[in-house]
């Protein structure tokens, strides 16, 4: 089944798509980085995107909150089309949390201030209420005792958990993870993955670019494999890992699983 048919099939089943890519193409100058991406993600679905570096997977999820602009096709997030309308973009960004490879915490603000910044200024929540909510999420990522420190005083794993809590503070409908564990020491990967697994179990819609295949196997509803700007294969994890259809997928899996 082609990607287009797959997306359509899902819609026909009457399940609510929260993110829809229709024939999305993107170029960096002459370089064709995304080619005819057709894909839709249902509410509550956990998607893991994997693929070799330069395959366009980060670019694809960064199109969802328009950190990258696509040139052709349409992306609908929560029914809103991502185009140059600044109002739409800001509205979608309010509802889509993002976690970056390099955490990107604000180094001049304390952990607590990092978490309350957007709720106070974007959601206009009173400061006290925002702080209570921030402490609630910091407890969930098991880091509440560090609330008054600065990001530079925390380890990488702690910073990434703070970044996840920062995303959650906006009470998003979708969370995007762009290689959240790639910049971490091996000992810290687990603490971040634990938080992500917990989040997945609570039913958050998640799109996650990662090479953590263990994570993909346990929590993903579907695994997407990309290469050279295209979605090569997308399937539920059991079928994806045990019975990959494309030889490109097979090669990729054999390289990352057998070492």
């Amino acid at each position: 089944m082609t990607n287009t048919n797959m997306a359509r099939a899902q819609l026909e089943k009457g399940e609510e798509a929260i993110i829809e890519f229709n024939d999305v193409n993107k170029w960096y100058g002459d370089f064709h980085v995304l080619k005819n991406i057709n894909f839709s993600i249902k509410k509550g679905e956990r998607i893991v995107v994997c693929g070799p570096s330069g395959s366009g997977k980060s670019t694809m999820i960064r199109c969802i909150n328009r950190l990258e602009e696509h040139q052709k096709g349409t992306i609908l997030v929560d029914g809103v089309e991502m185009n140059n309308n600044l109002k739409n973009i800001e509205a979608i960004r309010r509802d889509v949390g993002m976690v970056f490879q390099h955490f990107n915490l604000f180094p001049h603000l304390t952990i607590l201030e990092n978490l309350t910044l957007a709720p106070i200024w974007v959601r206009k929540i009173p400061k006290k209420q925002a702080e209570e909510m921030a402490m609630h999420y910091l407890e969930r990522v098991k880091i509440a005792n560090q609330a008054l420190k600065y990001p530079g005083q925390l380890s990488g794993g702690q910073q990434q958990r703070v970044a996840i809590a920062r995303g959650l503070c906006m009470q998003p409908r979708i969370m995007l993870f762009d290689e959240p564990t790639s910049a971490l020491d091996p000992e810290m990967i687990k603490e971040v993955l634990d938080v992500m697994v917990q989040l997945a179990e609570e039913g958050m819609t998640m799109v996650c670019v990662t090479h953590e295949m263990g994570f993909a196997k346990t929590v993903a509803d579907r695994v997407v494999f990309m290469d050279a700007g295209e979605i090569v294969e997308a399937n539920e994890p059991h079928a994806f890992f045990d019975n990959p259809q494309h030889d490109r997928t097979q090669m990729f899996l054999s390289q990352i699983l057998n070492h």
Partner: protein
Amino acid sequence: MAIEFKPSPSLPPPVRSVGAVAWVRQNLLSSPLNVFLTLFSVYILYLIIPPVVEWGIINASFDGESKADCTGSGACWSFIGVYFDQFMYGLYPSEETWRINLALIILVILIGVFAVKTVNKLYLSLVIILAYPIVAYFLFAGGVFGLEVVETSLWGGLFLTTLLGVVGIVTSFPLGVLLALGRQSNMPIAKSVCIVFIETIRAVPLITILFMASVMIPLFLPEGMNFNKLLRVLIGITLFSSAYMAEVIRGGLQAIPKGQYEAADASGLSYWQSMILVILPQALKLVIPGIVNTFIGLFKDTTLVYIVGMFDLLGRIQAATHDSNWLGTTMEGYAFAGFIYWAACFGMSRYSMRIERKLETGHKRN
């Protein structure tokens, strides 16, 4: 059973690496070249300091009504004493100088209030930035509440220097921020306007701008529509230093990692929110040395208003040395001017270092 791992305890550093003697050994006498440089520096200081002390203090005269009363072979400081009011206030009427002092006292008190913890800093800043200049203006210029009008042409001395410096700094800073943001912006028109402005202003010497402000602009303006020369000069100085400020701040903006912009965007912050809350606090902190450098440059450049017939501190001093009663006091005058400028600039520099240290706590970049 597994063996328990115990980290070794941290030991204190070796004794010889701390203390005054160790400091002298490490920093002054660590190598033959270093010993030579230390001795050479001591010799230079020996050549300079005794004559200066002799001239300035031991052989100096401190009272008298003219140069003839200075009998010692050293400096004639009575010159500074006699002219002190003029050096401070220019030709501002002496019975009105309390107004300048009052404005200064109000400013000091307002800034002092900053140290009080319970005060809302935002409101206080607004009072200082918006209300204070109006009060100060009416105190200086007069014309309200029975205050006698004092023409700006009478303003001078250190008062004028400070006024030009402070107003220039306070207005050129926000203008510089806007120009830097404009130059970084995606909007082609705003961007080109900023680039053209910055590059044009930077390519012109300040003296030219001051001449334009004081001589040329009145020629272009229609008859009767003229505005104050001091104001024109102030605008010239502000525009000039804002172009430099903009480039310093742009350097800071470029040093902020792209991830910070993206994280701010992804949080849903608008452009202005992300600039004011996330980017500028970091960027400005990075370029404090450059900003203060520009401030100090601006403060010293204000002496150039002498060229367009305004008598700031240096102008007043130069004029006074031409007094026939005080001929031959140029050295004392310039030493005094040098000391005042040095004190002001050194103060700014120390203050900026304090701010840097204060902002540094826990701000390690990742």
